Protein backbone atom coordinates (compact mmCIF):
# COMPACT_ATOMS: atom_id res chain seq x y z
CA UNK A 1 0.00 0.00 0.00
CA UNK A 2 1.18 3.47 -0.86
CA UNK A 3 0.02 6.42 1.22
CA UNK A 4 -0.43 10.11 0.47
CA UNK A 5 -1.65 12.69 2.99
CA UNK A 6 -2.89 16.04 1.70
CA UNK A 7 -5.02 18.94 2.90
CA UNK A 8 -8.70 18.20 2.17
CA UNK A 9 -8.97 20.82 -0.52
CA UNK A 10 -10.23 20.75 -4.13
CA UNK A 11 -6.98 22.22 -5.40
CA UNK A 12 -5.22 18.98 -4.38
CA UNK A 13 -7.46 16.86 -6.61
CA UNK A 14 -4.96 16.42 -9.47
CA UNK A 15 -2.14 15.57 -7.07
CA UNK A 16 -4.32 12.85 -5.52
CA UNK A 17 -5.40 11.52 -8.92
CA UNK A 18 -1.81 11.49 -10.22
CA UNK A 19 -0.76 9.53 -7.14
CA UNK A 20 -3.39 6.84 -7.72
CA UNK A 21 -2.93 6.80 -11.52
CA UNK A 22 0.79 6.09 -11.09
CA UNK A 23 -0.05 3.00 -9.05
CA UNK A 24 -2.65 1.87 -11.61
CA UNK A 25 -0.27 2.36 -14.54
CA UNK A 26 2.40 0.37 -12.75
CA UNK A 27 -0.12 -2.47 -12.56
CA UNK A 28 -1.19 -2.29 -16.23
CA UNK A 29 -4.71 -1.17 -15.43
CA UNK A 30 -6.90 -0.99 -18.57
CA UNK A 31 -7.62 2.64 -19.57
CA UNK A 32 -11.41 2.35 -19.23
CA UNK A 33 -11.04 0.96 -15.69
CA UNK A 34 -8.52 3.63 -14.77
CA UNK A 35 -10.96 6.28 -15.97
CA UNK A 36 -13.73 4.91 -13.74
CA UNK A 37 -11.40 4.74 -10.75
CA UNK A 38 -10.25 8.30 -11.42
CA UNK A 39 -13.83 9.59 -11.49
CA UNK A 40 -14.70 7.61 -8.35
CA UNK A 41 -11.68 9.04 -6.58
CA UNK A 42 -12.74 12.58 -7.49
CA UNK A 43 -16.25 12.01 -6.15
CA UNK A 44 -14.96 10.64 -2.84
CA UNK A 45 -12.14 13.15 -2.38
CA UNK A 46 -14.31 16.15 -3.22
CA UNK A 47 -17.02 14.89 -0.88
CA UNK A 48 -14.48 15.02 1.94
CA UNK A 49 -13.06 18.40 0.96
CA UNK A 50 -16.58 19.91 0.79
CA UNK A 51 -18.31 18.32 3.76
CA UNK A 52 -15.99 16.62 6.25
CA UNK A 53 -14.57 19.76 7.81
CA UNK A 54 -17.22 22.46 8.31
CA UNK A 55 -14.60 24.54 10.19
CA UNK A 56 -12.14 24.20 7.31
CA UNK A 57 -8.51 23.05 7.42
CA UNK A 58 -8.76 19.27 7.35
CA UNK A 59 -6.71 16.47 5.88
CA UNK A 60 -7.29 13.35 3.82
CA UNK A 61 -5.12 10.29 3.62
CA UNK A 62 -5.21 8.14 0.49
CA UNK A 63 -4.05 4.53 0.57
CA UNK A 64 -3.81 2.60 -2.68
CA UNK A 65 -2.53 -0.81 -3.61
CA UNK A 66 -3.10 -3.63 -6.08
CA UNK A 67 -3.06 -7.23 -4.99
CA UNK A 68 -4.12 -10.28 -6.97
CA UNK A 69 -5.40 -8.05 -9.77
CA UNK A 70 -7.69 -6.11 -7.43
CA UNK A 71 -7.15 -2.44 -6.64
CA UNK A 72 -7.97 -1.31 -3.13
CA UNK A 73 -8.29 2.41 -2.49
CA UNK A 74 -9.00 3.84 0.96
CA UNK A 75 -9.73 7.46 1.88
CA UNK A 76 -9.42 8.44 5.52
CA UNK A 77 -10.34 11.77 7.10
CA UNK A 78 -10.65 13.13 10.62
CA UNK A 79 -13.80 15.09 9.94
CA UNK A 80 -17.36 14.85 11.19
CA UNK A 81 -18.93 11.36 11.00
CA UNK A 82 -20.29 10.93 7.50
CA UNK A 83 -21.42 7.68 5.92
CA UNK A 84 -21.99 8.36 2.22
CA UNK A 85 -23.60 4.94 1.87
CA UNK A 86 -26.38 5.84 4.31
CA UNK A 87 -28.05 8.21 1.84
CA UNK A 88 -30.73 6.77 -0.44
CA UNK A 89 -29.77 6.51 -4.11
CA UNK A 90 -30.98 9.34 -6.35
CA UNK A 91 -33.72 8.50 -8.85
CA UNK A 92 -31.82 8.37 -12.16
CA UNK A 93 -34.99 7.93 -14.22
CA UNK A 94 -36.49 11.39 -13.59
CA UNK A 95 -36.85 14.05 -16.27
CA UNK A 96 -34.31 16.89 -16.35
CA UNK A 97 -36.68 19.29 -14.57
CA UNK A 98 -37.05 16.98 -11.58
CA UNK A 99 -33.46 15.78 -11.35
CA UNK A 100 -31.57 16.28 -8.12
CA UNK A 101 -27.82 16.29 -8.49
CA UNK A 102 -27.03 15.53 -4.83
CA UNK A 103 -25.82 12.00 -4.27
CA UNK A 104 -25.10 11.38 -7.94
CA UNK A 105 -21.34 11.13 -7.43
CA UNK A 106 -21.59 8.46 -4.74
CA UNK A 107 -24.20 6.64 -6.81
CA UNK A 108 -21.73 6.43 -9.71
CA UNK A 109 -19.04 5.07 -7.39
CA UNK A 110 -21.44 2.42 -6.07
CA UNK A 111 -22.42 1.39 -9.59
CA UNK A 112 -18.96 1.33 -11.12
CA UNK A 113 -16.78 -0.10 -8.33
CA UNK A 114 -17.00 -3.76 -7.32
CA UNK A 115 -17.12 -3.02 -3.65
CA UNK A 116 -17.55 -0.03 -1.34
CA UNK A 117 -17.33 0.00 2.46
CA UNK A 118 -17.61 2.69 5.11
CA UNK A 119 -16.39 2.51 8.66
CA UNK A 120 -16.17 5.05 11.47
CA UNK A 121 -13.01 4.08 13.28
CA UNK A 122 -10.99 5.86 16.01
CA UNK A 123 -12.76 9.14 15.28
CA UNK A 124 -12.06 8.88 11.56
CA UNK A 125 -14.11 8.22 8.43
CA UNK A 126 -12.65 5.27 6.53
CA UNK A 127 -14.02 4.62 3.06
CA UNK A 128 -12.70 1.79 0.90
CA UNK A 129 -13.43 0.90 -2.71
CA UNK A 130 -12.22 -2.13 -4.62
CA UNK A 131 -12.10 -2.80 -8.33
CA UNK A 132 -10.84 -5.75 -10.32
CA UNK A 133 -8.38 -4.41 -12.86
CA UNK A 134 -9.00 -6.83 -15.71
Amino acid at each position, binding site marked *: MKVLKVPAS*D*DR*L*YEVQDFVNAELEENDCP*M*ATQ*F*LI*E*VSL*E*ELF*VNISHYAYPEGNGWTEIHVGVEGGVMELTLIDGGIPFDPLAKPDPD*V*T*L*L*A*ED*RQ*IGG*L*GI*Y*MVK*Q*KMDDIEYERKDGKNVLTIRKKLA
Partner: protein
Amino acid sequence: MTINQAKNGSKLTVALEGRLDTTTAPQLEEVVHTALDGVTDLEFNFAQLEYVSSAGLRVLLAAQKIMNKQGSMIIHNASSNLMDIFEVTGFSDILTIE
Protein backbone atom coordinates in the same frame (compact mmCIF):
# COMPACT_ATOMS: atom_id res chain seq x y z
CA MET B 1 -10.08 22.70 -19.78
CA THR B 2 -10.38 24.84 -22.91
CA ILE B 3 -13.76 26.11 -24.06
CA ASN B 4 -14.16 27.17 -27.68
CA GLN B 5 -17.38 28.96 -28.59
CA ALA B 6 -18.66 29.67 -32.09
CA LYS B 7 -21.85 31.62 -32.59
CA ASN B 8 -23.86 31.79 -35.77
CA GLY B 9 -27.12 33.69 -35.33
CA SER B 10 -29.11 31.86 -32.66
CA LYS B 11 -26.88 28.79 -32.89
CA LEU B 12 -24.04 28.33 -30.42
CA THR B 13 -21.43 25.59 -30.70
CA VAL B 14 -19.33 24.90 -27.63
CA ALA B 15 -16.30 22.62 -27.96
CA LEU B 16 -14.74 21.39 -24.73
CA GLU B 17 -11.18 20.18 -24.54
CA GLY B 18 -9.64 18.45 -21.53
CA ARG B 19 -11.38 17.66 -18.27
CA LEU B 20 -14.81 18.71 -17.02
CA ASP B 21 -14.38 18.16 -13.29
CA THR B 22 -14.77 19.86 -9.90
CA THR B 23 -12.04 22.39 -10.63
CA THR B 24 -13.05 23.24 -14.22
CA ALA B 25 -16.87 22.97 -14.11
CA PRO B 26 -17.21 26.61 -12.91
CA GLN B 27 -15.71 27.74 -16.27
CA LEU B 28 -18.52 26.04 -18.17
CA GLU B 29 -21.08 27.23 -15.63
CA GLU B 30 -20.00 30.79 -16.45
CA VAL B 31 -20.68 30.16 -20.16
CA VAL B 32 -24.05 28.56 -19.44
CA HIS B 33 -25.11 31.53 -17.34
CA THR B 34 -23.84 34.25 -19.66
CA ALA B 35 -23.83 33.00 -23.28
CA LEU B 36 -27.23 31.35 -23.77
CA ASP B 37 -29.35 34.48 -24.12
CA GLY B 38 -31.19 34.26 -27.46
CA VAL B 39 -29.65 30.86 -28.28
CA THR B 40 -32.18 28.37 -29.66
CA ASP B 41 -29.75 25.78 -30.90
CA LEU B 42 -26.94 24.70 -28.56
CA GLU B 43 -24.44 22.12 -29.74
CA PHE B 44 -21.64 20.67 -27.65
CA ASN B 45 -18.66 19.03 -29.28
CA PHE B 46 -17.02 16.59 -26.87
CA ALA B 47 -14.50 15.13 -29.33
CA GLN B 48 -11.60 16.48 -27.23
CA LEU B 49 -13.26 16.04 -23.82
CA GLU B 50 -11.47 13.28 -21.92
CA TYR B 51 -13.18 13.26 -18.56
CA VAL B 52 -16.41 14.16 -16.81
CA SER B 53 -17.44 13.82 -13.16
CA SER B 54 -20.67 14.66 -11.32
CA ALA B 55 -19.56 18.29 -11.05
CA GLY B 56 -19.61 18.43 -14.85
CA LEU B 57 -22.94 16.61 -15.07
CA ARG B 58 -24.46 19.25 -12.80
CA VAL B 59 -23.56 22.01 -15.29
CA LEU B 60 -24.75 20.00 -18.29
CA LEU B 61 -28.07 19.46 -16.51
CA ALA B 62 -28.35 23.22 -15.87
CA ALA B 63 -27.72 23.88 -19.57
CA GLN B 64 -30.29 21.27 -20.58
CA LYS B 65 -32.94 22.84 -18.33
CA ILE B 66 -32.32 26.27 -19.87
CA MET B 67 -32.45 24.87 -23.41
CA ASN B 68 -35.64 22.90 -22.68
CA LYS B 69 -37.28 26.31 -22.28
CA GLN B 70 -35.79 28.06 -25.32
CA GLY B 71 -34.69 25.54 -27.91
CA SER B 72 -32.62 22.41 -28.24
CA MET B 73 -29.30 21.05 -27.00
CA ILE B 74 -27.29 18.30 -28.66
CA ILE B 75 -24.05 16.63 -27.62
CA HIS B 76 -21.72 15.29 -30.32
CA ASN B 77 -18.70 13.00 -30.27
CA ALA B 78 -18.80 11.77 -26.66
CA SER B 79 -16.16 9.07 -26.07
CA SER B 80 -17.07 5.62 -24.77
CA ASN B 81 -15.69 6.62 -21.34
CA LEU B 82 -18.05 9.60 -21.22
CA MET B 83 -20.96 7.49 -22.51
CA ASP B 84 -20.37 5.10 -19.63
CA ILE B 85 -20.84 7.98 -17.16
CA PHE B 86 -23.92 9.30 -19.01
CA GLU B 87 -25.51 5.87 -19.04
CA VAL B 88 -24.91 4.91 -15.41
CA THR B 89 -26.37 8.21 -14.20
CA GLY B 90 -29.39 8.09 -16.52
CA PHE B 91 -28.11 11.25 -18.24
CA SER B 92 -28.24 9.43 -21.57
CA ASP B 93 -32.04 9.67 -21.21
CA ILE B 94 -32.24 13.39 -20.44
CA LEU B 95 -29.51 14.64 -22.78
CA THR B 96 -29.61 14.31 -26.55
CA ILE B 97 -26.39 12.56 -27.50
CA GLU B 98 -25.60 11.90 -31.15
